[in-house]
């Protein structure tokens, strides 16, 4: 075997010299968070949002909040934490803080089984149950809506499949999140290729305008949804969210611990009209969290009904 040092991978790309630690030139060596401070910040986040950072996720907080330290020119996390709790600029910094502690992964038409159930069963059933009292507005809540892809997907399904069947039916979608940046993105309604990769072609053609590798949701869709800042763990805010027919709360409960899940789900139950439905994420379960709902099976998905 050759004694000289290999300088390229078998694939031909130049190799990093692994005998040296990888130092990114120009970037400050990442500041470290002590375990005690991590626990304090974790509790702070938990009391505020219900989100629970396990020990194994300390590196994530270090990395993300470390970027805030750099930008603010702060020396250490203790100083940053001080700002969050007592500083003059805390309200402003909280926005970036929320951005840093949330994980936002979503795309259009993410859950086909849920879209199917929404279109084929839930909405027709709710409409049918209303024929007698004449209410014709369907209120849908996309909780933890992130950058809005889920909310707009539902709006598109409504325009494409439901409005033709039920011309008198109005739709109102509310998307909520705690991260200001994603709410901004949602309001703007402009997305990258990655977000639309799962969108069926008819929807791409009819409801998006594309230019320069960016996809803008058309006005008739955007009009159906509005986006607001709501913290699922804030009782006062949650009490304002009432009278919904369908709630989507997907892939966000995983960030809560058992206690906060129970509280959030109890609030979501209260937010629903009788006969309303709750959807949670594909791999998620309400087992041990709430037995207030009636569980309804659909092909490849489950919905929870408030009776």
């Amino acid at each position, binding site marked *: 075997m050759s004694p000289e040092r290999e300088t390229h991978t078998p694939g031909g790309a130049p190799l990093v010299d692994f005998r040296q630690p990888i130092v990114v030139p120009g970037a400050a060596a990442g500041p470290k968070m002590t375990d005690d401070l991590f626990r304090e910040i974790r509790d702070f986040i938990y009391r505020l949002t219900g989100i629970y950072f396990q020990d194994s996720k300390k590196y994530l907080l270090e990395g993300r909040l470390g970027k805030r330290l750099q930008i603010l020119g702060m020396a250490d996390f203790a100083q940053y934490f001080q700002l969050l709790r007592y500083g003059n600029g805390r309200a402003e910094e909280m926005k970036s803080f929320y951005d840093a502690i949330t994980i936002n992964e979503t795309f259009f038409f993410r859950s086909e089984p849920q879209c199917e159930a929404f279109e084929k069963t839930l909405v027709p059933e709710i409409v049918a149950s209303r024929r007698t009292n004449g209410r014709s507005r369907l209120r849908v809540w996309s909780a933890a809506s992130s950058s809005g892809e889920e909310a707009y997907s539902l709006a598109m399904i409504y325009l494409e499949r439901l409005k033709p069947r039920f011309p008198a039916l109005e739709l109102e979608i509310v998307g909520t999140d705690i991260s200001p940046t994603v709410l901004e993105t949602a309001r703007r309604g402009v997305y990258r290729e990655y977000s639309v990769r799962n969108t069926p072609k008819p929807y791409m053609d009819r409801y998006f305008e594309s230019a320069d590798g960016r996809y803008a949701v058309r006005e008739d869709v955007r009009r159906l949804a509005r986006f607001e800042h709501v913290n699922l763990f804030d009782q006062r805010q949650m009490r304002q969210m009432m009278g919904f027919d369908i709630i989507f709360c997907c892939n966000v409960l995983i960030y809560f611990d058992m206690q906060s899940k129970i509280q959030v789900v109890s609030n979501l139950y209260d937010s629903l009209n009788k006969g309303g439905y709750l959807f949670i994420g594909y791999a998620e*379960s*309400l*087992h*041990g969290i709430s*037995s207030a709902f009636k569980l309804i*099976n659909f*092909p490849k*998905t*489950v919905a929870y009904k408030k009776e």
Partner: protein
Amino acid sequence: MGRLIMVVDDSATVRKFVAASLTMQGFTVVAACDGMDALEKLPSGTFDLVITDLNMPNMDGFEFIRSLRENPITRDVPVIILSSLGDLDSMARGRELGVQSYLMKPFSLEKIQYEVSKYISWAD
């Protein structure tokens, strides 16, 4: 591909021994600890048979079977009740819900295998 059976019971001991009785015959078993757990696991496969207890937290056996019957996908799946409840009311309720067999606990391997064989044959 063998047959798929769902076993629902809140006792881990019962789940283990019933599942063992079935896997020894080549069946594939999915276990659930109560009706709610079972309904959440239903989308994971096409089940040829369901064996369920009655007394369970979160959702009892009757509510679970009712849900099965209300769902077009599982309306006709054969159901065996496996319970210590031997009262006539419970048996009548089971019949109303279209339950094919009502097995009394304590069960034995032979009883389980015999009852199951009425609905699905041994896997290859």
